[in-house]
């Protein structure tokens, strides 16, 4: 097994064990989205209009939830020292961790989103658009989050700092993700325009995220 595959498999395995982040994210997502209709009341038209935005916001917060443990868990138990001195390129290791994190926390959200969309009165085309935008957009959230997680790694309670650092950077992803999903619900912009920009944002963060996070980790070696 190559070093990068070893990291990937280990992180996935830990995520699905007891105490892993996989289930927590999707439960948090469920709770947040369920609370919104209670707060807004039974206005179906309103729910339908703001449904994609609610689901996107909840997905954003849920994917941040487990992110602060991504590197700090490895830092606390000494694994990060060995990873840093290992022969595998740190950028690839970071990317593998990001991918494992996305698979274990964001994919369950994407699967749960259509079910929760029913609570928010979304119809079939809107559901489809929402799932597509989440599928394309959540990797960007994870890989932008990698940078914040790497910067906050040595802090005891880095979770809050992570949110403060990462949330502003996710604004473009949120904007175009919601815009693409809304295009199907309300119009008049075509779906493709914001969706293509969302794809571009994801590709850019996939390219930049691992390098920036690896650089941050190297800086904090001391």
């Amino acid at each position, binding site marked *: 097994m190559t070093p990068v595959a070893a990291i990937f498999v*280990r992180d996935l395995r830990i995520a699905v*064990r007891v105490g892993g982040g996989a289930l927590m994210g999707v439960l948090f997502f469920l709770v947040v989205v369920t609370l919104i209709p209670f707060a807004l009341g039974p206005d179906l038209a309103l729910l339908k209009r703001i449904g994609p935005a609610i689901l996107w916001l909840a997905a954003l917060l849920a994917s941040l939830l487990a992110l602060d443990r991504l590197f700090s868990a490895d830092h606390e*138990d*000494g694994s990060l020292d060995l990873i840093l*001195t290992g022969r595998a390129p740190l950028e690839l290791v970071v990317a593998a961790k990001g991918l494992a994190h996305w698979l274990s926390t964001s994919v369950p959200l994407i699967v749960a989103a259509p079910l929760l969309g029913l609570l928010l009165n979304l119809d079939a085309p809107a559901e489809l658009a929402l799932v597509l935008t989440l599928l394309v957009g959540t990797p960007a959230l994870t890989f932008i989050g990698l940078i914040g997680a790497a910067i906050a790694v040595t802090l005891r309670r880095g979770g809050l700092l992570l949110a403060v650092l990462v949330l502003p950077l996710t604004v473009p992803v949120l904007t175009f993700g919601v815009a693409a999903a809304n295009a199907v619900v309300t119009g008049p912009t075509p779906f493709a325009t914001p969706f293509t920009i969302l794809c571009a944002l994801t590709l850019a963060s996939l390219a930049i995220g691992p390098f920036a996070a690896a650089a941050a980790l190297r800086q904090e070696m001391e």
Partner: protein
Amino acid sequence: MRLSASDLACRRGGREVFAGLSFSVEAGEVLAVTGRNGAGKSSLLRMVAGLLRIAGGRLQLAGGDPQLTIGEQAHYLGHLDALKPALTVTENLRFWSGFLGTSAANIGPSLEAVGLHRLAHLPAAYLSAGQRRRLSIGRLVAVKRPIWLLDEPASTLDASAQQRLVDLMREHLAGAGLIVVATHGATGLTATHELQLDQTVPYPLAGEGQGRGTLRK
């Protein structure tokens, strides 16, 4: 293979921990690093592993793989055991041998070498401190690396496990390995060199720890 340092200096948080440190260890030799708390034993090991920036001086490895850094040819055994409590004993060791680049074939014998083969399927969360340390040492057995950097390796081990560690260290030395070990007490192994990090200032006040290393044969 020879690991040598000349005029090595270390700064942590703006404070000089040690300076002017020189040593040289050949394959088959042990360098024991001793000194009071805070003298910089761990810092020296982390520096050799490449985890701390070298503030001054040079650190060289002659006869190693020129493509790799010193840290990439070394095993670093620090205070932390680098184990995941959610994974079993076998999974933990298999991960590290996979990450450090060997096949999974020698997981079983390595666990046996550190006496953990009976606990192979137990999650690491249930291990005692000494067992965790032994599992961590299993990594050194499973993956061959010419340099071992051991930071207080025997701190949580019982007498028989300490003896086993000494045997493993002897085997490593016999296979042209090289060991740098930070220690307070006796390692049970006659060190070929001893590097004392606090010769000149036995009990300095805080912030004055200007250790000058002395090397004894």
